[in-house]
């Protein structure tokens, strides 16, 4: 009987699933530690926000199937049965991830500096669109809680981060379409529009002055 293609991969996938659940307690500890540290470090910024500014900290643990799928990177998206021991989820830097969403964009540098002071040893790998850095991203170890699982944090302009959430849900299955020239252009147009919107809001906030409270009574 001919083996189904998935049967050939199954031993590797099963090993990775087993590894995932072995690592899960560590992943949880890392994400809790990282989120707590980031909330603490950004608290002074949160308390000093102006009325129109926002800072939101979100965390997530990468799902098992998503982790396995991410690891299946080679062309054709197969695990090679000829190297069953050649795969480990520990190669993924984002099993435990925290995202800091900031609005407006000018807050990004302030948050980045505050966190970088604390996470000096972490590796910098920004999210880019061409040569433009969209979001600073770092990964490394929270030594207090795990020497195996790395954590990752990124600081993202809020409008782009929310756009990514929608885009990820919509394009999750169709990587090819997501990377097509047309979609890249549409995506660039969205980034451009979001940047311009933020600039507009910031200019408005800088130049706008409240009318005097008795303005309506003046002739």
């Amino acid at each position, binding site marked *: 009987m001919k083996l189904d*293609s998935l049967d*050939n991969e199954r031993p590797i996938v099963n090993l990775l699933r087993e590894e995932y659940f072995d690592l899960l307690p560590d992943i949880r500890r890392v994400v809790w530690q990282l989120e707590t540290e980031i909330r603490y470090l950004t608290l002074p910024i949160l308390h000093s926000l102006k009325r129109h500014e926002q800072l939101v900290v979100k965390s997530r643990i990468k799902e098992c199937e998503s982790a396995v799928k991410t690891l299946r990177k080679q*062309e054709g998206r197969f695990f090679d*049965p000829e190297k069953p021991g050649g795969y480990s989820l520990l190669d993924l830097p984002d099993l435990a991830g925290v995202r800091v969403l900031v609005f407006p964009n000018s807050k990004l540098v302030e948050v980045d500096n505050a966190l970088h002071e604390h996470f000096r040893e972490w590796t910098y790998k920004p999210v880019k669109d061409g040569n433009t850095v969209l979001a600073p991203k770092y990964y490394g170890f929270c030594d207090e809680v795990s020497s195996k699982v790395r954590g990752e944090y990124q600081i993202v302009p809020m409008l782009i981060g929310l756009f990514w959430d929608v885009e990820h849900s919509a394009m999750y299955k169709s990587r090819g379409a997501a990377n097509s020239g*047309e979609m890249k252009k549409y995506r660039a147009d969205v980034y451009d529009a979001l940047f311009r919107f933020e600039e507009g809001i910031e200019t408005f906030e800088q130049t706008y002055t409240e009318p005097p409270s008795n303005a309506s009574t003046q002739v």
Partner: protein
Amino acid sequence: MKKDILKEAEYWYNFDRDIFYNRKAKKAFSLEFVDDHREEELREHIQEPIDGNGWKFYFNVTPSESVKQMLEQVLG
């Protein structure tokens, strides 16, 4: 555009494997290969004859025999 060249040559896209394939021609192009090669090169590869009865895989990194077998089963 590359996508149009492949569509014109009756290649389909496999979403799970990120592969463009044509069962009749028995050729498959990985997404990475398509990304990394120019339109003219792609046209040449679509046109070129294949040896034997097996599938020809246009990948940046040649897949192992096991992976080729799995891909052949998936592509039919």
